[in-house]
């Protein structure tokens, strides 16, 4: 593990991505304590106050401090998006690898079902699931995880098909290994590279999906300082006070970039062939 970290930090992408993510993690842990003001304190005199000494990143339509809301909101945005992506990835990777391993009719059956689920747009599927499971952040997480699963299954299967044809899988079959060992120990570690990269891209999507669900009133509920919700609420005032929408949008962007950089770094670090 320390070896992996060392290799990760040796690549520039890995180092920058990791540094950004450490900052974000600190924000998640300590954000509310460090926030200069109460994120939900309404100040009618300070509505749409531009960035300055009083509100470093300005104030929103209710005079709430944007910086404080941003810092507090990290906790309700990043961990849930991450959790949703990881759940979806794990389920998708196992299904995809299993499908490639089984092959033939089973592969056909599994992939056609995956296609059927993929035919429903992710947002619609998430909406459907949330409305049947009930409102709330945790249900939204679950819904996004399920919406991500088919896509991940497809990506993983295409990689796993190549792995399936390798002789070490045949050797394991000839040895009489159990299917679960072949899928989890022989094949899955060899599909990790592309899956990790895909996962890091999807974290950004997850943040946006959360925002959309919150905007539709199915995820985080106002006045919670969730980043997506902040973007959604600030939408109406974009001409009047662009800083209200810019700050959370930039935060989401930086998060996405951080995960992407980490993904690039991890891809190199996870490859034991890479002797750097």
């Amino acid at each position, binding site marked *: 593990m320390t070896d992996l970290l060392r290799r990760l930090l040796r690549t520039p992408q890995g180092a920058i991505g990791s540094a950004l993510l450490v900052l974000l993690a600190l924000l998640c842990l300590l954000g509310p304590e460090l926030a200069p003001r109460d994120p939900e304190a309404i100040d009618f005199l300070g509505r749409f106050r531009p960035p300055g000494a009083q509100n470093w990143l300005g104030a929103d339509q209710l005079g709430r401090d944007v910086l404080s809301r941003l810092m507090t909101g990290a906790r309700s945005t990043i961990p849930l998006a991450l959790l949703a992506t990881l759940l979806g990835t794990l389920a998708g990777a196992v299904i995809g690898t299993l499908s490639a391993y089984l092959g033939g009719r089973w592969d056909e059956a599994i992939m056609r079902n995956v296609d059927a689920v993929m035919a429903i747009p992710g947002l619609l599927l998430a909406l459907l699931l949330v409305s049947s499971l009930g409102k709330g952040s945790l249900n939204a997480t679950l819904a996004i995880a399920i919406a991500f699963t088919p896509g991940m299954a497809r990506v993983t299967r295409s990689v796993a098909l190549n792995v399936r044809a390798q002789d070490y899988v045949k050797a394991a079959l000839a040895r009489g290994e159990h299917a679960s060992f072949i899928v989890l120990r022989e094949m899955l570690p060899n599909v990790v590279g592309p899956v990790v990269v895909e996962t890091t891209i999807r974290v950004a999507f997850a943040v946006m999906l959360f925002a959309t669900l919150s905007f539709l009133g199915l995820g985080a509920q106002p006045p919670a300082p969730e980043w997506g919700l902040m973007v959604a609420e600030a939408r109406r005032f974009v001409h009047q006070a662009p800083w209200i929408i810019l700050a959370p949008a930039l935060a989401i962007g930086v998060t996405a970039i951080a995960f992407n950089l980490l993904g690039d770094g991890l891809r190199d670090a996870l490859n034991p*062939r890479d002797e*750097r």
Partner: protein
Amino acid sequence: MTAAPPASPVLAIENYSLDYTLRQGTARVLDGVNLSIGKGEVVGLVGESGSGKSSLAWAIMRHLPRNAVEASGRLSLGRLDLRGLDAKGLQAVRGKRIGMVFQDPSTALNPTLRLGEQVIEVLMRHRGLGRAEARDAAEAALAEVELRDPAALMRRYPHEASGGEKQRVVIATAFATAPELILFDEPTTALDVITGARILELFARLRERTGVAALYISHDLGLVSRVADRVSVLRQGRIVEEGAPEAVFLDPRHDYTRRLVAAVPRPHRRLVDDAAGGDTVLAADGLSVRYGRRRLFRPPPPPATKAVSLEVRAGEILGVVGESGSGKSSLARGLTGLAEFDGGIHATGRRLDHARKMDKAYRRAVQIVFQHPDSSLNPRMRIGDILARPLKLYGGALSDIPALLEQVRLPADYARKYPHQLSGGEKQRVAIARAFAARPSLVICDEITAALDVSVQAQVIEWLLALRRQHGTAYLFITHDLNLIRQIAHRIAVMQQGELVDLRDAAAIDAPDAHPYTRALIAASPAPVG
């Protein structure tokens, strides 16, 4: 033929050195190479993988990777300095004055163009012919390489032609512009034994007719000594020995050449002198392997092997030879349960008629080693973990791992390494150690030395025989190298188009009553000089 290079060589390489810049520093690939090819002369360049022989070919063709640095030396074609050429000058040389024939004809031809187009294009470009003239010239060129019905072949796509036909098209293209020099980079390695032998015969005739000079690159010293006028032996970028093939082969002066020559398999030098045991370890009873599902409204695909029956006795080495596509690997896949089969297998005192019936006892007793060591070891597992699997499955202590490595002459600390840190030969030894960890009574060796260099092959064979003496294991040894199998096998089975056409004692393989196909195989793999 003594080595006396004519006065004005077609190609002269003088003190040529080439480096590759890598992250870790620079690596010297070619070091002070001197080589000259006279008019109408064929020079063989022999070297094992990593010796720099392909780098030299690409240096002559002026197609080096970006990180290549030419440290010193001259490359000249006649009076032309190849190193000083610009892009335009190169176009006039490549394909026109220097032709090249690659190892694998299936990747050397564009799969989306008809075969005729690919020859016509070269002729229009380099001989300045019009389309109609080029078409006639192409047809003549294809007739020249003894292709039947060239006009019909020109309308076909590469996938509609056999490997031998494709290689003939590539050769025709190379010869069509009447170049001064042709580079052959292992032109028969990707082909079957018999097809390869015919390509070599064709090369000899074309050479006589056109008087072209050629550089013939190969890892096979025996093969090169048959086609070349002079041989140069390349080792780690340095030419260690050169001379007439007979001299190099019969009286090698350099240590490395001596080792190379000793490693070439000779059919009459037996390496095994004991007899096989009496008990049958495994018997295949009308085994046929079939791929692909039966589909509605479509005839079932033909079986890859048709009702093969053979038995392997305790401690016996049974060779299986045949061309690619003859079903010998399918036989191995059927016997290990990797493919569905009809018929039966008798082993461990039972008759199995389906892959699902293979139990732990059978799996333990019958082990398989694959051709490519790169893909048969999981790149994400350490050697120790790889060897631990059969011990966990079939019983055995993990403390046996150092002893297993010791059996194949690998140090115990290799257990902590990953496969990519090992060389090809070392990886294959790990694969062999994994098979022996199960204490099997039969090991199926599926072309296990085909991907290895000759000297490594000789070592692997030696260790396999030592393991057999120690454990009394039987081998089902699948190979395309008849000379090799005649050295070690007790009996040899010959397969052709999925059928077992011949099965006889190795000593009687060249008897007059052998199957015609067996005799054709023997004729196509002549014993090396000496």
